[in-house]
Structures are given as structure tokens and as C-alpha cells.
């Protein structure tokens, strides 16, 4: 071997990338609200966030990786990560539309008809229609294949009749439309015979009951379906193929699996500043350093993933390792900030708000226990744990 400098195929930024990043940075600096918006899980905060999303969309920053015709910029993955880094560095608000943009839209792009794409994507991009996910049921959380809510065929009306109950439905208290899986073949078990349906949250027969979260706000809701009719036009993908439709995009590169490092880098910077403002106490030295290290590791890991994706590799099951890492980092980072403040840390602040939010990370999007099983079985190749009856 004759190694030479600069031999590593660098994923260097192009002039376009740099211009894109600079434009985003300038726009965000001029437009990010000076004061944090109220929680999006309150009625006022929800509206304030919708207004922010509309402003983002008007400048075409709300869905940069989408095609132009649906409000995006056709940005590359590299540019998408650059934008996310700028977004969080600028301290911009969390996205009330995230369930639609990150969880649903990849599925609409892959399985939706042109008519569905035209009907749903533009209003998602502007934040006019906010989507809520309705996966979990009272007896079906991480074991999603055990869900029991039903969709019954109604040929006379050309659609499906939904019955049953969904729970832990994020944003559903204020959102406009929902999406989820329903059992459309009563004789089916597990992941067979499921259909992916979308529905308006103010549909006849649909009761939305808000559930207060740890922070007291109605971020969740329960949904009770009592003969709710959904026309065929609102079915996503083939009836009975709901599992494949849902799973094909859960590991989506642009979805939650590739959680932007910007958020954690920005939080680590704020933590470091907080530590300095308290006189950089030695007792917190290691925890502050570890939070910074975690954020740096996550940033570099993400760029490694992006490099791999750009050079044609798929993200695979690494998204599970990723999820455990960032969710635990987020909790540690916020706990350190609160501990550093001593008794003052009890007072409600952006830190307590962020802390409560971080506590949900190891639970949602597949608990960390499930993610560790996936890492062990799919990456390390360990034998599957015996599952219950019907497995």
C-alpha cells in the first residue's frame, strides 16, 4: 500500500451546498422567533407553531428534501442534514408537523396515488393540516402486530368502517387527520390482513379524548372509533398489505431514524454555557464533558451514515442503535442541566420542558428494549427470543 494524504473519499461540501447552508442560516437568523413558542401541546401553542410552519413554508424551508411541486427544494440528503443543523443551531421551534413529515410522508411518496400525493402533501408542507399517528392500542404497543381495531368492508358506500380504540396518539388532541393500521381481515393474525388507513379526526363516530402527559399538556389522545366510515380514496397502499406499507418506511433514511444531530449539539452547547455560568464546577465536569462527547459522537456518526447513504449503502438496522444512543444522550444531557442548577432546577424553564420531552425518547418510536433486541438479533446475529403464542 502507498497511502497518500487526502485519499479518503471526502464528502466535501459543494458550492451549492455551501450556498444552500448560508441561505438557510441567514433566513433563520432573521426569522426565528426571539422568544420560545408556547408548548405545541396547548391550544395556543399549537396555533403558534402552525403559524411558524406557515412562515417556514412560505420561504420554502418547511420540507427542503421534498420536490418543488409539493413545496420543497429537492434538497440532497447532505443539504437536508445541513439544514437541520442550522435549524437547531438557530434555536428554531420544534415541528408540530413532524409526524406527518417524518412518519407519514415517506409512505405517501412510496405508496400513495398521485391523487393522494396532490391532496395531502401541500397542506402538510404548510402546516395547514396537521397529522397525528395512531399506531398504538391499549393492548398493542411495541408488539404492533397484535393490534385489534378493525376495518370492515362496506361495498355499498365504497369504503371501510372502523371500530376499536387507539391510544398514545401524539398531537391528536389538536390535529386534523390521523393515520394508522386496522385489521381488515377478521380471520387474520399478527401482521397479516392489516390495512393502512387515514381519516379526519372530526369524523362522525370518532371520539378524541385528550390525555395529559407528564408535563400536564394534552400531547396524547385516545381515539375511540364507533362505525367511522373511510372511503377507498383514503386507504394508503393495497388493503390487507398495511404491515408492509407501514414497515417499508419505518427505517426511512429521512425519517426519525436519522434524527438530526443539530438538536443534540445545540443542547450540549447550551449545557456547556450553563456550566460556565455556574462557575464551571468540577463536580459536574465529567457529566458536562460526556454530554459534549455524546453530541459530537452523534454528529460524526450521522455524517458517517450520510456518507454511506450517499455512496449507496442502506441504513439498515443501524437506526436501532442510533435511537438508543440519542434518546439516552438526551435524557443525560437534560438531567445534568437540572442537577447543575440544584434546587433552582425544579423551576419550570426550557430545561425542565426539554427534560420532560427527553423522558419520552426511550419510550416512543419503539421502546429502547425493542431496539436493543433488534441490535442483538439483526446486527449481532443472536438467536431470536421465543415469542408468545401466534408468533
Amino acid at each position: 500500500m502507498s497511502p497518500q494524504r487526502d485519499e479518503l473519499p471526502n464528502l466535501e461540501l459543494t458550492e451549492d451546498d455551501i450556498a444552500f447552508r448560508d441561505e438557510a442560516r441567514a433566513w433563520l437568523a432573521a426569522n426565528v422567533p426571539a422568544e420560545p413558542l408556547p408548548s405545541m401541546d396547548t391550544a395556543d401553542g399549537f396555533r403558534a407553531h402552525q403559524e411558524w410552519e406557515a412562515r417556514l413554508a412560505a420561504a420554502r424551508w418547511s420540507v427542503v428534501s421534498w420536490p418543488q411541486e409539493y413545496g420543497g427544494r429537492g434538497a440532497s440528503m447532505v443539504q437536508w442534514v445541513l439544514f437541520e443543523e442550522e435549524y437547531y443551531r438557530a434555536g428554531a421551534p420544534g415541528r408540530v408537523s413532524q409526524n406527518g413529515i417524518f412518519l407519514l410522508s415517506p409512505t405517501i411518496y412510496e405508496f400513495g396515488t398521485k391523487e393522494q400525493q396532490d391532496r395531502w402533501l401541500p397542506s402538510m408542507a404548510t402546516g395547514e393540516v396537521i397529522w397525528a399517528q395512531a399506531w398504538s392500542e391499549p393492548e398493542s404497543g411495541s408488539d404492533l402486530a397484535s393490534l385489534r381495531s378493525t376495518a370492515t368492508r362496506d361495498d355499498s358506500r365504497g369504503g371501510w368502517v372502523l371500530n376499536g380504540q387507539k391510544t398514545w396518539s401524539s398531537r391528536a388532541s389538536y390535529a386534523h387527520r390521523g393515520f394508522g393500521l386496522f385489521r381488515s381481515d377478521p380471520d387474520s393474525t399478527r401482521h397479516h390482513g392489516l390495512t393502512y388507513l387515514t381519516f379526519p379526526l372530526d369524523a362522525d363516530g370518532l371520539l378524541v379524548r385528550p390525555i395529559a402527559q407528564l408535563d400536564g399538556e394534552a400531547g396524547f389522545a385516545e381515539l375511540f372509533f364507533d362505525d367511522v366510515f373511510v372511503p377507498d380514496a383514503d386507504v394508503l397502499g393495497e388493503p390487507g398489505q398495511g404491515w408492509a406499507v407501514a414497515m417499508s418506511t419505518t427505517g426511512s433514511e429521512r425519517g426519525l431514524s436519522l434524527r438530526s444531530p443539530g438538536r443534540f449539539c445545540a443542547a450540549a452547547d447550551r449545557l456547556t454555557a450553563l456550566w460556565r455560568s455556574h462557575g464551571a464546577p468540577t463536580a459536574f465536569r465529567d457529566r458536562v464533558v460526556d454530554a459534549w462527547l455524546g453530541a459530537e459522537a452523534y454528529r460524526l456518526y450521522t455524517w458517517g451514515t450520510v456518507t454511506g447513504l450517499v455512496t449507496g449503502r442502506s441504513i439498515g438496522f443501524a437506526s436501532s442503535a442510533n435511537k438508543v444512543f440519542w434518546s439516552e444522550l438526551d435524557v443525560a444531557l437534560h438531567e445534568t442541566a437540572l442537577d447543575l442548577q440544584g434546587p433552582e432546577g425544579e423551576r419550570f424553564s426550557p430545561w425542565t420542558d426539554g427534560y420532560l420531552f427527553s423522558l419520552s425518547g426511550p419510550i416512543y418510536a419503539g421502546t429502547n428494549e425493542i431496539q436493543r433486541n433488534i441490535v442483538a438479533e439483526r446486527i449481532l446475529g443472536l438467536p431470536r427470543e421465543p415469542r408468545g403464542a401466534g408468533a
Partner: protein
Amino acid sequence: MRFELTDEQRGFAASLTDLMRSADAVGAARAWAAGDKDPGTRLWSRLAEQGVTALVLPEDQGGLGGTLVDLVVAFEVLGHGLAVGPWIESAALLPHADGAMITAAVPPLAPYAVDADVATLASGTAGQTLASIDTTRTLVAVAGPDEIPADAVDRAVLAASAELLGAGERLLSDTVAYVKQRRQFGREIGSYQAVKHQLADVRIALDFARPLVLGAALGDVPVSAAKVMAGDAARRSARTALQLHGAIGYTRELDLGLWINRVRALVGAWGSADHHRGVLAELLREA
């Protein structure tokens, strides 16, 4: 953001891996610990012929002019295969073209010269010989060592980090293989969630230490970041490996302990986690 190794780097790693396997590096390490340095010295020469000691030496000094990423690639293999001899000193701290075994003490980070009983001491006077927890390393006290430039010391810290990463990977893969065949209560122990989750955590720790080691090689983060994260990940891998092997892992007859003790030695050498966290804290304090 430049984390794809070249085909050439992968090929280099594969050739070093093959060489160590065919030369029975572990057998050489056991002989080395027992006082027979011949197999280890022969392996050293063969690795040196591949250019390992000259890897990051500039071409105008007869070296290969490799990057720090090349260095990291090589040391991960050395850690994975349990190479014996003062490699960090000879290939990272004081790289040279003739393949000689060179060692040095760099107090306070590396207060003893490793293997000065067989290697040439670069500076100072050799004193008392001391035992290491890693029986494949001999520690020699040194009086009056010269000051070594900071960039050379940084290279040594980076090499130690990469070696830890390699050792951590080896401990993980050996443990994964073990829990797939060891049975208790009628099933492979690797099918139990309590075992799976520990190994998943090791996989995650190593996955997130690697970008910091590469990042340090690329100059994106201080080498201290690499040493802390690689050391923590390797330590977790070692502890988990021993725990999941149970009593057999605690014996000398199994090779596992050689890596466990190597990890412990390298976690302390070239700056402890506490030292390097202190370095990073100073940077954050001034930021």
C-alpha cells in the same frame, strides 16, 4: 463527514489481519508473556515489512506518508489481533523506516517505557523493571527521558484509542460467538434478553466511539475525545465479555483474559479517562 475507508485502506487492514492470524499472534503473545520473545519478534518483523512502523513517516524521510486515518486502520487491527511489542511507541510516537523496535517513556501520560527489555530505548536511562496487569507488556522505569513534541504524543494517544477499539471489537465478537453456543435452561444463552441487551449496549458503545476515533484522525475533534470514548467502550466490552463467559472467562487457559488485561492497561496508558476529560473540560471552559 468523511467516513468511508478507501478500498486500499480496507485491503491494508485485511492483509495485516491475515498476517496476524497466520502467524498465530495470540500464541506469540503467550510466549512473549512467558519470556520467549522469538515468535513475537518474528511477527513484529513481518508487520514492519508491511510498513507499519513507517506508516505515518513522511515520504522524504523514507516513510509511506500515510494519514492518521491509515494509522487508525492499522492499530485497530493490532488491537483486534493482540499484537505484542511497543507498537504505539514505534509506529505512532516515533515512526521510522527501518522497522526497529523502539520504546520510550513519556511521563506523565506514559510513565514507563514498554518492553524496554527487548526494544531500543529512545531516550533516558532504563531503570527498574515492573510487571504490568497485561502480562504481554513489560514496564521499565526511565530516568531523564527527553521531552517529546505534542503532535507525536497526540499520535500515540490516537493509536492507543484505535487499539482499544480493535480490542473491544474482538471481545465483542468472541462473546457473541460464545453466547450462541453456550446453552443453559435448554436454550442458547444468547437468546435471553438479559444477555442480548448487554451485548447490544456494547455494540452501540463501539459504534459511537468509532466516529470519534476517525474524527480525531481527521482533525475534527481532539484526540482526548477519542481516548475517552474508545476507552469507555472497550472497558464495557471487556466487562461484558467476562460476565457473559462466566467462570471460564476468568481463567488463564481461555485467551479472552489476554484482551481483558490489554484493555485495562491501555485504558490507563497514554492518559487516563480522567486526564483526557480534564483536557476536554478545559477546552469547554474556554469556549
